[in-house]
């Protein structure tokens, strides 16, 4: 079993008006085989947490810690975090012109595993994973995310999740912009990865919709850079009915 531990995390970004604190002391413990949903209104710091775990240079950790089985994640470069077993499914995957999906997937898999995957099984693995996620086989020859629709980009993120087999996956609003069919396909992919790889999942979402397909063990509500409330799956049901108003109003 692995553990991802976030302790009293404070994160700031540089803005034109100077430094702005987004996360104001966040603590979370996630074990493999657990699914944690992080919910909250827009601007509450959910995506900041996701990007900070992955090491995006825009975010500065001012205090607190993130550790993976005791190892200091904040000391690792972005690629070292991926190699250590962290995966971020991005909210807005970028297009990388001139780099084909095939080339990209193989290069990343080689980097993460420290050795090139066996060509025959790898090609088959990629093909199978693509077909399960209902991604057209042509996509393998296309450039990374180039000209993909929003839904296609999200499927390709989950494709990588299934192929790279991380210990912990952070899904940053993977459900946004997906129709019901795509949402089902993507959720099945996450559930498969969790079942096959003993993965821990940090599911960041604004809406409760995706929680019908991916069952959380824990729900944390983010408001203004802090965890305002946490509980079991029943908390999501309550949010479904009441929305975030009571947190936002209480805060104001």
């Amino acid at each position: 079993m692995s553990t991802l531990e976030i302790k009293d995390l404070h994160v700031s970004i540089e803005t034109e008006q100077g430094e702005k604190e987004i996360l104001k002391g966040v603590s979370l413990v996630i074990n493999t085989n657990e699914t944690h949903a992080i919910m909250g209104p827009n601007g509450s710091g959910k995506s900041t947490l996701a990007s900070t775990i992955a090491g995006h240079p825009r975010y500065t950790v001012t205090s607190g810690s993130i550790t993976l089985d005791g190892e200091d994640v904040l000391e690792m470069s972005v690629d070292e975090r991926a190699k250590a077993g962290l995966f971020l499914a991005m909210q807005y995957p970028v297009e990388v012109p001139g780099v084909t999906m095939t080339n990209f997937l193989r290069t990343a898999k080689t980097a993460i595993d420290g050795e090139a995957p066996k060509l025959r099984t790898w090609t088959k693995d990629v093909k199978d994973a693509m077909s399960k996620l209902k991604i057209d086989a042509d996509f393998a020859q296309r450039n990374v995310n180039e000209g993909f629709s929003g839904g296609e980009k999200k499927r390709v993120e989950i494709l990588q999740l299934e192929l790279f087999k991380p210990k912990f996956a952070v899904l940053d609003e993977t459900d946004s912009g997906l129709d019901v069919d795509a949402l089902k396909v993507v959720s099945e992919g996450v559930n498969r990865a969790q079942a096959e790889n003993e993965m821990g999942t940090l599911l960041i979402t604004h809406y409760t919709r995706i929680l019908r397909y991916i069952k959380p063990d824990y729900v944390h509500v983010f408001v203004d850079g802090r965890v305002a409330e946490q509980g079991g799956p029943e908390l999501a049901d309550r949010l479904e009915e009441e929305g975030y108003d009571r947190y936002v109003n209480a805060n104001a």
Partner: protein
Amino acid sequence: MSETTTHLPEEKARIGAPSIPGFTEEGENLSPLNDNASSLLGGDSTKGHSHGGGVGVVDSSRAGRLTSYNVEDFAPLTGREEDWRFTPLKRMGALHTAELTGAAPKVELLGSEVAQLSTVAADDKLRGVALKPEDRVSANAWKYAADASVLTLPKSQDAGHVRLRITGESKDAAAQHIVVVAEENSEALLILDHVGSAVLAQNVEFDVREGAKLTVVSLQAWEDDAVHASSQQASVAKDAAFKHIAVTFGGDLVRLAPSARFTGERAEIELYGLYFADAGQHLEHRLFVDHAVPNCKSNVLYKGALQGKDAHTVWVGDVLIRAAAVGTDSYEANRNLVLTDGARADSVPNLEIETGLIDGAGHASTTGRFDDEHLFYLMARGIDEKTARRLVVRGFLNEIVQQIGDDELQERLTETIEEELAATNN
């Protein structure tokens, strides 16, 4: 038709609209050309319509550019001229002033049984069919070229992949003239492979006749000390397709001016380019697409990478859609990727449109640093920074490499790009 778009009579002006000298309802009267068509400044585009008028302004329109076979017609260069302002004249090896009597690079034909290479005298009638010098260096090369190499691609035959190896063996300032005749319905992929070292003023002309399909790759793989100024002009006849790909990474100073002129309808011109400038290199590309006849199509895309102190690239893309060229479809773009501090990329797209009856015309230019979001995305997948950078640069340039269609050359270029990237540890 252009009367109504460019020269609105007073009474048609919108009521209440203020009258501003030099402006019509459509906007500013751009490109004031010399109405006197016999003048050196009066190109064809001045004949069909009447905007502007009055005294011509040098360089105000691409159509008004001086062209002449006589070097004396061009004023000595000062470096302040519009088309020389980016070029360091001191590093030109005196190509614009000297007597170009050095030995011209050796020309050898490789890899085709169909194509024929011959040498003709400087006064042969083949010379000047598709080319008329547009600057002083080109005119100087015209004057001093001792003879001309003529490559003939016979009609209705596919000559396949043809390579002209052009080997520079002397640093004495030299002139060279090459004529490529793509006969009716011929087909070929021609590689002009510039290697060795030279101080060379060069004219290359492509006579692309009816229905011919000619792809030219002009590869500047010179040694580090070479100086190369090359004017490469094509006339493209009815139903013909001309694709020109400039690939420049060698040489101290390279100034390549590919231009292509439509002479018949339904023809297609594509100009592509790929350059990679290292510390101290000056790589300049000035291209011109001349739409003078209706219903033709052109596409221009140049991509460049720069790294190291005082690496300098210049790209100037002129597209002229003359009044007669209705139904034109044209696009040009230049993209530069600056990999390190201290490099400089100049990019100037110029689009002149003299008729509104076109299918499309556009231009774009971007010069940017390495995109950090690309880097983050790839690194978040475990790929280290160095490999990620290489992936992106290779991907950026690959768009042009893929246009070439010659496996061996594509491989050679991919290797070159790798070497360039390894050189500064990118």
